[in-house]
């Protein structure tokens, strides 16, 4: 038996019972990485063997030694009769935006190409304490700025395991791909506008963005500090619930982490959906998109399979006893991306200030006269296009003469988006929802290079997800079928603050009800023909 076929729960259970060695688990997964991942992303312009085209390229760095040491520790605890933790022996990949002592942490940017943090992110520390094996760092859009993972300074970028000519989505594309390609059962990602859920949808895995503050941001290299959420990517809902259990909780190192008690997410899954009120919204069956010349917003249809998948999921849940609430108004959903354009970029521009070549990371080797030149040359050479665009826009909309018109206005829009959800979830309101069901993305995975370069269109692939970040509420994306091209479709449930348990229940109920669906038996392209796919 090859342990890459097992869920995280099964691995942990077998390792804890002494039926399976963590070392064996590690070896299986390292072998799978060897088989499907190809060369890691690099700053150098490599001429690649054509066979690399069909590889996944999820990883920037495989930390085999670190994982080996952890596996040995897990085995030692098992031998001593101690509890090695709820994730004992489970290999986990980490989006390379988290600082992990003993790894290089690049944020997929040249400016941090050599940065080795002397500390470990709280979320990663919790995984390690729970017995997980940190197997490597995954590729992403530079500083998480993107929705395809193509903008990494380290190329080749990750490819979608379902069709390697397609993107993984992003920015947690490497994470999603590593889970879909069975290189790991679990991955740690981050979601600022949809960066866990969108790649999870594209790669046919489960991705959960927790409530803002539910998981600690300490050690996460910041994008939009008021929006960033670490969260799990997994192959099924119970594994996501298990990982969230480990990640969730307050952290004295993060003042914005929440004190709210952490429920038993796995136990909650068993409660089913009978009586849950699940909402659908017509404001989520299309997107609003600005004309590039006039800025006029026009309504655009989304891929029809997205809406039919939402219908299918709703019907399946209705059969299980959920109440479906139609036509829940989300009038401000269409303002999500414009407001996000402003808020996230103001925070991003400020968060990027510290990368100046003075203290760590990349510093220009060009001769410079004076400080300004050092800054300019270092940042010009060290940052890719996306950070530069975001700095320009962030600086512009927060400038004293523009702030009221853009930044302050965007903050008001943000609270309007939040109030849409508050009304929908209000237990004394007209809708009294437990969850809102929507497509995760307007389309399935697009072709490589198709959208890259059009920063606006790229951003609009987050239109379905971004409202959750503005509102700070939890949301989970789950696989809900394949489109005619065989690409995964994702649907998402939004929930109330700190009610991850409710959206996980709904997601799990659907997952269970469709366990034998034909599409669930389809194996991603990158795994077909490999010895470990059977």
């Amino acid at each position: 038996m090859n342990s890459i076929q097992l869920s995280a729960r099964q691995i942990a259970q077998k390792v804890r019972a002494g039926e399976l060695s963590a070392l064996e688990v590690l070896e299986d997964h390292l072998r799978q990485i060897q088989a499907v991942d190809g060369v890691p992303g690099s700053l150098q312009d490599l001429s690649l063997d054509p066979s690399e085209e069909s590889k996944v390229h999820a990883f920037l760095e495989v930390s085999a030694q670190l994982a080996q040491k952890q596996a040995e520790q897990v085995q030692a605890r098992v031998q001593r009769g101690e509890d090695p933790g709820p994730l004992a022996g489970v290999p986990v990949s980490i989006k390379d935006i988290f600082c992990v002592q003993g790894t290089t942490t690049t944020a997929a940017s040249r400016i941090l190409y050599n940065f080795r943090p002397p500390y470990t992110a709280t979320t990663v520390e919790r995984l390690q304490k729970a017995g997980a094996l940190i197997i490597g760092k995954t590729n992403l859009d530079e500083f998480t700025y993107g929705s395809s993972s193509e903008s990494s300074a380290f190329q080749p970028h990750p490819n979608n395991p379902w069709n390697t000519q397609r993107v993984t989505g992003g920015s947690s594309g490497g994470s999603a791909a590593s889970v879909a390609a069975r290189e790991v059962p679990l991955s740690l990602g981050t979601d600022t506008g949809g960066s866990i859920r969108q790649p999870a949808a594209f790669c046919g895995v489960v991705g959960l963005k927790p409530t803002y503050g539910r998981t600690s941001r300490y050690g996460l290299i910041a994008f939009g500090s008021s929006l960033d959420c670490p969260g799990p990517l997994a192959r099924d809902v119970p594994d996501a619930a298990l990982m969230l259990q480990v990640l969730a909780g307050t952290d004295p190192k993060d003042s914005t982490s929440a004190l709210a008690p952490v429920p038993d997410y796995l136990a909650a899954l068993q409660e089913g959906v009978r009586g849950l009120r699940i909402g659908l919204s017509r404001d989520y069956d299309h997107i609003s998109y600005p004309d590039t010349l006039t800025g006029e917003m026009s309504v655009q249809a989304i891929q029809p399979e997205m809406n039919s998948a939402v219908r299918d999921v709703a019907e399946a849940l209705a059969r299980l006893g959920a109440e479906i609430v139609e036509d829940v108004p989300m009038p401000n959903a269409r303002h999500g991306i414009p407001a996000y354009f402003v808020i996230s970029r103001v925070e991003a521009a400020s968060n990027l200030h510290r990368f100046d070549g003075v203290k760590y990371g990349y510093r220009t080797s060009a001769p410079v006269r004076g400080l300004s030149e050092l800054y300019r040359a270092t940042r010009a050479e060290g940052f890719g296009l996306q950070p530069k665009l975001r700095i320009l826009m962030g600086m512009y909309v927060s400038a004293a003469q523009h702030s009221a018109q853009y930044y302050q206005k965007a903050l008001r829009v943000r609270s309007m988006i939040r109030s849409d959800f508050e009304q929908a979830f209000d237990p004394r309101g007209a809708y009294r929802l437990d969850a809102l069901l929507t497509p995760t993305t307007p389309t399935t995975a697009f072709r490589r290079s198709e959208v890259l370069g059009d920063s606006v269109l790229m951003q609009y692939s987050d239109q379905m997800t971004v409202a959750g970040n503005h509102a700070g509420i939890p949301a989970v994306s789950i696989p809900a079928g394949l489109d005619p091209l065989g690409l995964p479709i994702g649907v998402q449930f939004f929930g109330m603050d700190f009610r991850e348990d409710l959206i996980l229940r709904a997601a799990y109920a659907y997952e269970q009800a469709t366990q034998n669906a034909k599409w669930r038996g389809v194996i991603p392209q990158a795994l077909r023909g490999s010895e470990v796919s059977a």
Partner: protein
Amino acid sequence: MKTYEIVIGLETHIQLNTASKIFCACKADSWGAEPNTNICPVCSGLPGVLPVLNAEAVRKGALLAAAMHAEINPVSYFDRKNYFYPDLPKGYQITQFDEPIGKGGYMDLEMPDGTIRRVRIHKLHLEEDAGKTKIELGERLVDFNRCGVPLVEMVTEPDLRSGEEAAQYLTQLRQLLRWIGVSEADMERGHLRCDANVSIREAGSAVLNTKTEIKNVNSIDAVRQAISEEAKRQIEAVEAGQRIQSYTLDWDADTGTLRKMRSKESEADYRYFREPDLLPVVLSAEEIAQAQSSLPELPLARRARFIRDYQLSAYDADILTSERALSDYYEESVSLCGGAAKVVSNWMMNDLSRLMNETGKSAAELRLRPADLAEIIQLVEGGKISTATGKSLLAKVEAGGGKPAGIVEREGLGLIADEGALSSQIAAVLAESAAEVESFRAGKESLLGWFVGQVMRRTGGKADPKRTRELLLEQLKR
């Protein structure tokens, strides 16, 4: 020449004396430490780390706001002030912008003519300090030790009218900071830093003209001198028909001159926005009340009370309230001395003050406590020891400890008032001084003092002077 009025506002940075920095666990004070030895990932701006607010800094900030009669904001916010400089490792300073911890407030200055000048506070907020840079051998060096040290920035309205007034404001502020225990306020160590905004206008006018900003006026003398120099320069320029430009000037204390640093035509845009890594600072009504009620009696109030209740001169009251510990020392000593306010004041102004100067100790640090001082004063006043012995006891208690009465007893320092003992000493003096005795008896009564002196010499100063005089007269006139 017209008459001009000088208009001054001061911007002060006050280093709070908390144990740790404002957003991390590093020690707050790095005095004497090697560069970059008192730093951590948080205060040196590594990626991914987050600030955690030091509650003690908030408490001290609120206490200072209360002492400045400012309104304490129940909900204040931290903001990011974005700019690039190598000593600012995050590329932004975490500070408070539009909703600071204190709003309004004032400090009253007593002018030499007895009138009060009220200096209004424009802004009082918490922030983190930046590091230091210096150029050495053509290289720019950065020291992050000071990054994240908690500061209160306090800016006055343009309510000061001379270098002298500005100096007095700073003196009084320094006293207040130490008094309420929020800062060591040592200007040499940068605990209290000052920039001065100076402009001039025709006397009687209410307009505010273009101002210049003088940086680095980091001693009270520097404030006085730099402002006077700059006001003089501005008046001369205006008289010569020139326009005052908005310069930033640097005060060079060594040469006593102002140097132009840069013109300040356009204000930098710091692109302030709320710091998303910190929660709003919420102070409950109880916490605000606590800050206000934990405020001790302030220096000016105590000074007024000393003048009223103890009938001290303004001068004595000034000195005795210059530090809180000294004024506490005084009050405790007076109370232990049964209210002998004037006597205690004399002892403290002269002898105790000398002892403090000689030992370099503050009132709080003295080993000689108010109970000891009171005991010594009572021994002198009760005629048990001479004034000279009393004074020498101060140093003895300070050096070796012990109770004054015990030392007097052990070392036999008490005055000899016993008639038998004194009489035999007197007899001996008279026996040695036949010529003087004859002169005295012949009418040269001024010799009495000389005889007393002789007795004192024989007794090592311990003869009770009053009794000695009486017995001498008895024996000489016999």
